[in-house]
């Protein structure tokens, strides 16, 4: 899907590639580029490096800002054709170019970060040269940031595949050459991955391939300059969860044999930076309305998909006053497991299924917000860890409903 390349420095080989995916990031990409360049010079000065902006044919001057950013590190600009938008397309172009350049390591950082420092490049890149195949980010993040990751992707990925990658859709990561080749040719690539499903796709493939994984603390909170809404837009939600469920069907032979979970190696501590993440405003009313108001729309589908006791429990939760609102973690685990089985068996249209999960997720998120409102970040992390254990303990329920695993 590559339509355009500009390689003013005529780069033909590189040991290390820093990729910056973008779509209309003219205001911000200069900062990410400058920080990446400084990180490469400060920490990988002896290596042959390049910075690649993989863009979605932005019309706001992203390309010009990127190429004009002063840097001693050579730069390459890549773009999809006009009208082709998706972070996955960007990353596919990046990976193809990295393979062409015979890069040993690829680091990916978003184009809209104001929290990025040169240390990010060091901490994401060094584990690859130390022998790890995939590096996931560890951010100090606000307890309400990354709600889809916290309530769905992390617990489900961990319970299924047995590896604890705390931020599996963090977006910033690094990977080695052999994994880049895998990404480029793996048959599980599809249009959903090409949109917002690419991050969970990359993490899941790394786990599935048995690649040694490291989680790296990048030293500062991840602050996007274009912070999105607390509640994810429906397409981003359905692409991410849809990819997760698609892979679940394909990799059932793997996760069916996994019991409990294991940690990964970690890297990047002692950076000396302690910074409080920016506060996130949450509208409890908006979450509550999002949950309650969809009962009429999805009642019939939920009755079809969910067991009676689960559906009835949802009805009870709906009637709870806001002050006592609670969505039990075990119920949530059972709902996600039931949905994954319904998705596999196509009990209903898959897109409609994914859409109908969003209001339930809003209810679960409201419950998380209420339970953790007086908690510190660390206490909220413990709460999430406990929820993950509930998912692992509830996995036999999934295995019982899933059917033939071979």
């Amino acid at each position, binding site marked *: 899907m590559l339509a355009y390349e500009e390689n003013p420095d005529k780069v033909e080989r590189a040991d290390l590639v820093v990729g910056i995916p973008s779509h209309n990031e003219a205001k911000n990409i200069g900062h990410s580029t400058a920080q990446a360049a400084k990180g490469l010079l400060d920490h990988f000065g002896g290596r042959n490096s390049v910075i690649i902006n993989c863009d979605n044919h932005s019309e706001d001057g992203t390309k010009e800002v990127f190429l004009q950013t002063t840097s001693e590190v050579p730069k390459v600009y890549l773009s999809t054709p006009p009208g082709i938008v998706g972070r996955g397309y960007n990353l596919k172009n990046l990976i193809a170019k990295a393979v062409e350049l015979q890069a040993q390591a690829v680091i990916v950082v978003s184009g809209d970060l104001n929290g990025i420092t040169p240390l990010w490049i060091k901490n994401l890149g060094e584990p690859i040269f130390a022998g790890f195949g995939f590096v996931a980010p*560890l951010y*100090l993040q606000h307890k309400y940031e990354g709600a889809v990751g916290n309530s769905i992707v992390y617990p489900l990925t961990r319970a299924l595949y047995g*590896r604890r990658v705390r931020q599996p859709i963090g977006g910033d990561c690094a990977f080695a050459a052999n994994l880049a080749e895998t990404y480029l040719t793996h048959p599980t690539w599809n249009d959903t991955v090409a949109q917002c499903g690419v991050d969970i796709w990359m993490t899941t493939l790394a786990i599935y391939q048995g690649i*040694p994984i490291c989680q790296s*603390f990048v030293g500062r909170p991840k602050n996007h300059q274009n912070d999105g809404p607390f509640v994810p837009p429906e397409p981003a939600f359905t692409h991410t969860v849809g990819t997760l469920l698609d892979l679940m069907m394909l990799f059932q032979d793997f996760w069916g044999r996994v019991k*409990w*979970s*294991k*940690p990964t*190696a970690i890297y990047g501590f002692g950076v000396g930076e302690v910074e409080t993440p920016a506060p996130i405003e949450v509208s409890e009313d908006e979450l509550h309305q999002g949950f309650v108001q969809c009962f009429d729309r999805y009642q019939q589908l939920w009755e079809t998909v969910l067991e009676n006791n689960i559906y009835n429990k949802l009805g009870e939760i709906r009637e709870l006053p806001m002050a006592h609102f609670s969505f039990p973690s075990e119920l949530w685990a059972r709902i996600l497991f039931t949905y994954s089985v319904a998705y596999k068996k196509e009990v209903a249209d898959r897109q409609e299924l994914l859409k109908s999960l969003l209001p339930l997720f809003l209810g679960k998120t409201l419950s998380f917000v209420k339970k953790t409102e007086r908690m510190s970040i660390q206490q909220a992390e413990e709460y999430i860890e406990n929820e993950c254990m509930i998912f692992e303990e509830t996995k036999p329920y999934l295995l019982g409903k899933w059917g033939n695993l071979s």
Partner: protein
Amino acid sequence: MAKIMVVDDEEHIRLLYSEELKEEGYDVSTAEGGYKLLERIENEKPDLVVLDIKMVDYDGLDLLQDIRNQFYDLPVILSTAYDTFKEDMKSIAADFYVVKSFDLTELKKKIKMALEASIAS
């Protein structure tokens, strides 16, 4: 019979853990601290390590990081008198943690889970 290495600078803890875990059928060895610990792990090849966090001469969390980097999937259970260690993100490299107690029920449960996870993955 799974081999468990108990790392703690307090002798009475090493003795307690060793006796109780042997009664459970495990093959138990003990170590006082960090000096040459990685070498011992390399030589003895335990199936699981129970690691004290606060030792006089060693930081258990630093040791944990070294173990994880060198022995990627070796299960490690952190053993601690206080749970304030959880404020340090390094602790996430452990499989589990237990608060020290003369009742080892929780430790035995976590050892069983960690060993099962090893087998599955």
